[in-house]
């Protein structure tokens, strides 16, 4: 390396660097320390991700596997007699051009209420596809984001617990159900699917991948063989869920519905600094207070606070949100080049490579279909 190495940066860039250095707690520290921290972050994040994923796999295998098999068994007859999510693929029509279509995924993150996104969307002339996470369905319909206004309206359910039925158990879902297309994983609790069915929602099935890589005797492959035995000779589409319905909805939008642009609202995958620690620590359950030293290094690993420069906000992650958000960002990076991901959440922690962050208003101005 030459002894007289130097380079020039613009005044604006330098001002941004100074601001970011201060924001990240390195205001009075050496530049080298700050830059070194930035470059080691990716390695740390990868190692944390590995630990979280291994641990979550173990917990799911121990606690939920039997339950998923049971749900599948009870759903099987309906799966045989109902539609595959493959039927939602619009590319069968020769005139369909993916690049002309966008989807807007609606999650139930706190930013949706804070930014009045549902009201803004309801009053817009957006004519694209709506992909609603189950947990956001009732509030979306109540806010006027309905299938009467948005004719391509989908709802997605991945979560297998019976409490998910509540997301469909409302008169407003009954009112609009017949105009809503539902995408359900084969291991969703049968009572949830039945409530959606009663509301008039047409059920479309797909596989939620989790152990397909373990070979022919894996549950994914065995259940696929069982489904192919009757009425579905080609099987069903199988998606990566990313562990949650928000990421699943992003996958459904481009992989099943073939929309080349997928925008996100209400996909925070994190908490705000105003949220109480009891809620953050228990991932939303206030009834399980846990005494933890908030200054311990372990606590800081479990609940990192990150700065989102795109929306100029801080976001606190819990282990579950770390599990979700690191994976979603990874899958966005690995998605095909024709997929454009736009985050219009205006909060949360989803930013980075191949994610364009804009306000919802900007998105609605630029995209109509």
């Amino acid at each position, binding site marked *: 390396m030459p002894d007289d*190495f130097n380079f020039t940066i613009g*005044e604006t860039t330098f001002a941004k660097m100074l601001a970011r250095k201060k924001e990240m707690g390195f205001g009075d520290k050496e530049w080298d320390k700050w830059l070194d921290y930035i470059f080691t972050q990716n390695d740390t994040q990868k190692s944390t991700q590995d630990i979280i994923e291994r641990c979550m796999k173990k917990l799911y295998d121990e606690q939920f596997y039997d339950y998923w098999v049971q749900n599948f068994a009870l759903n099987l007859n309906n799966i045989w007699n109902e539609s595959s999510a493959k039927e939602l693929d619009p590319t069968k029509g020769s005139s369909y051009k993916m690049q002309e279509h966008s989807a807007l995924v609606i999650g139930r993150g706190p930013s949706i209420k804070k930014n009045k996104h549902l009201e803004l969307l309801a009053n817009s002339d957006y004519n694209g596809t709506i992909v609603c996470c189950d947990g956001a369905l009732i509030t979306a319909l109540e806010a006027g984001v309905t299938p009467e206004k948005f004719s391509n309206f989908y709802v997605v359910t991945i979560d297998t617990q019976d409490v998910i039925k509540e997301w469909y158990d409302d008169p407003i879902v009954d009112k609009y159900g017949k105009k809503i297309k539902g995408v359900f994983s084969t291991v969703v609790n049968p009572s949830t699917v039945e409530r959606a069915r009663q509301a008039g929602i047409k059920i479309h099935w797909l*596989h939620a*991948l989790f152990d397909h*890589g373990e070979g022919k005797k894996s549950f*994914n492959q065995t259940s696929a063989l069982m489904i192919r035995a009757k009425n579905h000779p080609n099987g069903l589409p199988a998606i*990566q869920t990313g562990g949650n319905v928000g990421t699943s909805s992003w996958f459904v939008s481009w992989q099943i519905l073939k929309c080349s642009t997928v925008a996100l609202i209400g996909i925070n995958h994190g908490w705000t600094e105003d949220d109480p620690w009891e809620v953050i620590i228990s991932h939303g359950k206030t009834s399980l207070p846990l005494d933890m030293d908030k200054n311990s290094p372990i606590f800081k*690993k479990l609940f990192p606070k990150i700065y989102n420069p795109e929306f100029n906000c801080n976001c606190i992650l819990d282990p*579950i949100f770390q*599990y979700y958000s690191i994976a979603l960002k990874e899958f966005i990076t690995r998605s095909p080049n024709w997929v454009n991901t736009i985050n219009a959440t205006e909060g949360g922690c989803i930013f980075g490579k191949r994610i364009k962050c804009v306000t919802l208003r900007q998105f609605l101005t630029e995209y109509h279909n």
Partner: protein
Amino acid sequence: MKANFNIKKNTESDETAKVNEKSTESKKELTESEFEEFIVKSGAKGSFMIFRSAKKEDELGLEEL
């Protein structure tokens, strides 16, 4: 505006400090058992599992299964 970034060559003590720093940092790493213990105690539950496979392309989903 012009800013020059000078390169300070690493000395032996810098290297030692760096190694010590990394060693301390690794002690602070979250272990799998600590993580598992926390998840169990907190009652925090996720919705589903992330799918991983030796065939990395499968991780983005399958057209038909």
